[in-house]
């Protein structure tokens, strides 16, 4: 608490000086300095091997295209099994059916989703998974087995009518899934998976187009909700805490 208090009274000049020092250090570390007449020209992901040889992405007005610096970032850190489970529970509720799916596909797959066990949280640490459960990564990465399980969880849960009704009723305050999705509703749905963020109009349009597609196929309105929610659920970046 004392540290927090001391930070709060830092004056603006000190903060500015601190930021300058940080940026200077970063510039030195990255070799990115004005005097060298070089600048960062792209960011590529260390998790993305397809980016090799494709890093020459220059702004049109780049002063010296022959002196590129590529800033590389590690693969996106995503949440552990507990984080993913909590998002599922928040979105779809904690009915017995939903919880069972989350438990089997997410919570119990400790080494795949990350999130090691500790002695204070044995309820989510089945004893049958071996010692590795204590060594599971706290900074897991996405890879196909994890995504396979997550996709399955999304599919299995959104296949439950009760889960769709829960989302529409609890989060959107719409009493019946026979009400067609609106732009406002779609924006709210987006914010359930991405709290505090607003979707672009392109995203809203694409999600509403799913409802239109379902309607044109004469699927019940419930399926319009189902496939919009499934699409949001399948999108992997809500796993970034």
């Amino acid at each position, binding site marked *: 608490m004392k540290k927090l208090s001391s930070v709060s009274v830092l004056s603006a000049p000190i903060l500015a000086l601190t930021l300058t020092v940080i940026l200077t250090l970063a510039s030195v570390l990255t070799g990115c300095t004005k005097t060298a007449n070089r600048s960062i020209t792209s960011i590529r992901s260390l998790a993305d091997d397809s980016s090799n040889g494709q890093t020459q992405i220059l702004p049109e007005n780049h002063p010296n295209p022959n002196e590129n610096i590529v800033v590389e970032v590690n693969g996106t850190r995503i949440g552990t099994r507990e984080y993913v489970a909590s998002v599922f529970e928040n979105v779809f509720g904690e009915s017995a059916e939903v919880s069972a799916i989350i438990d089997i596909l997410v919570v119990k797959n400790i080494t*795949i989703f990350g999130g090691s066990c500790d002695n204070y949280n044995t309820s989510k640490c089945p004893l049958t998974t071996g010692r*590795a459960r204590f060594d599971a990564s706290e*900074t897991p*990465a996405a890879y196909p087995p994890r995504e396979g399980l997550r996709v399955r969880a999304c599919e299995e849960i959104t296949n439950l009518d009760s889960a769709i009704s829960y989302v529409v009723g609890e989060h959107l305050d719409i009493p019946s899934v026979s009400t067609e999705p609106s732009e406002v509703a779609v924006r709210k749905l987006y914010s359930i998976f991405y709290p505090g963020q607003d979707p672009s109009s392109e*995203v809203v349009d694409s999600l509403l187009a799913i409802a239109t597609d379902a309607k044109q*196929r004469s699927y019940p309105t419930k399926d319009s909700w189902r496939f919009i929610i499934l699409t949001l659920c399948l999108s992997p970046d809500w796993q970034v805490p």
Partner: protein
Amino acid sequence: MSKKISRRKALTLIGGSAAFPLAANPVEMLIRGLVNGVLQKASAENAPNSIEPRNYIFICMPGAPPRWHFDLAMRPYSAGTALVRNMHVNNRFKNGQLVYENHPVNLPGGGSLNMPHIWQNDIPRPGAGTAPMSQLLENMLIVRGLNMQVDGHGPNRLKMIRPNPGANSLDGMVADLSSKPIPAVSTSGVLQTAYASGRGIGQVVLGANRNGIIEAMSPFRRADYGGDFLNRRDAMELSVNEGLRRLGIIAMSGNPAADGLFEMRSSAEQLLRDGVGNVGGEYDTYVAKYRDLITRVRNGTLKGVTNEAITNANLSNQKNQCRLTDPDAGANYLDQDGNLHSIISTETSVSGLAENFAVTEYLIRRGYSSALTLDVGIPTKFRASRIKKRSDDSVKSSDVNFNYTTDEHAGGSAVSVIAWNFYFTCLAACIREMIDVLDTDLGIFNESLIQLGSEFSRIPRNDQLGSDHGWMANVTSMWSGVISEPKVLGNIRPEPVSNTQRQGDWGKNAPVAELDGLDERELQMGNLASTVTEILRVESPFSNNQPVISVDESTSSTSQRIEDGRERNS
């Protein structure tokens, strides 16, 4: 493997977006990276290699069997130099007695390599027929005389796969650079605890059995959802994918690395759609093949063992030489009717051997994984006519099955020779078949490394009662298409005969010249780790410890960096 949203495609898609930060001020990008905590390292050193790492199959022998039966060649290049004999260092029977013998194998370029006696055996091949075990030497590198510097099963076993506790494990390093759907898999109960990935890539841990492999592939096997959900989902695919594409654009505008997330989801969905085939059926086929190899080793001839007449009565010290490790801590010995090698029964096997190789073959054949660690179990189900108490020769039990432990502290010399000849011949047959799968069937032997290792070799006891932890005498063997020729590297020295506990040759390390720019230093774990990583194409966790070979990727060949393995007196 299909990647529905490649980075190139994603960048093309979003190239004109004003929201995308590539068009923003680079300093803003740097700040954003710092603030978001995603800017981890501004260095090209750890960037994914454009070349995939080699497939890595690490075969662990927990418990650490004595290696002088198999890959600890005592006099590889100097047959004329006699062994300084330890009476527990035997590898065959001859004229009713225990002896140690070399088997010279002619090398393609002339000369010969003196391997332990077992290398004159033939090993069964799938279906029918046999092949000389010596063919296994063609692409084999043996590193001996490794000083693990500390005793202990646990630590040394973990060191083999994670040699530097402050760095990632070797299989984790491969997984970090792998594009395979399940980068790292372990069936090893112990090695899984050493796994560490720099990118947070999880390791799939499974039991080496039918259920285990089915479970491992379960992320890609949809449950029966009932109804027509999947049909409708398929029908809606275009509009759902367009929604995902739009969501991806937004994601990448805030976090350029998010494209990796979308690629992984896309890959997983592709596997879900393709299905993983009849996993259980495939596994059954492979496990039957490897079990058949073991059966044929059991039914075939182990030269120097099952074609020799050897009885309890002939042994010079049967109470010691037939000592058994059992729950009574070596208080007993084996008394066999007729020929001693008849302890190999119709059920004798090596636990988990066929199952582990079947799981490995499935994953490798399908291209699902590139880093696999597996355990080979102990020799099991030998049959004893009688087990007697060493104290008074009274019969403790009759006509019983017994297992032989790899950690043979209480394994008498005679039983040891029988057990390990059987075990290593089975293992050689399975490794040979795995190599054939990699080479002939898949054409990826050049892109693969099989490593056989354990926590250490062993120190023989002069009294022939068994052997103890040889942590200053470890041995590891490697096979890869890139290994150009049979080679034994690493020096050893005998313990003087004045050592009343552990005299003679058993592979104790001796200094190697021209290593790390230092003169006269023995091989250590760091040198082995650097050798393995040199072959795997990943960064060594011990940059100060040089590999014992160099790989020339342009010619797919290796060259040794140190002298041929030799024997020294000090």
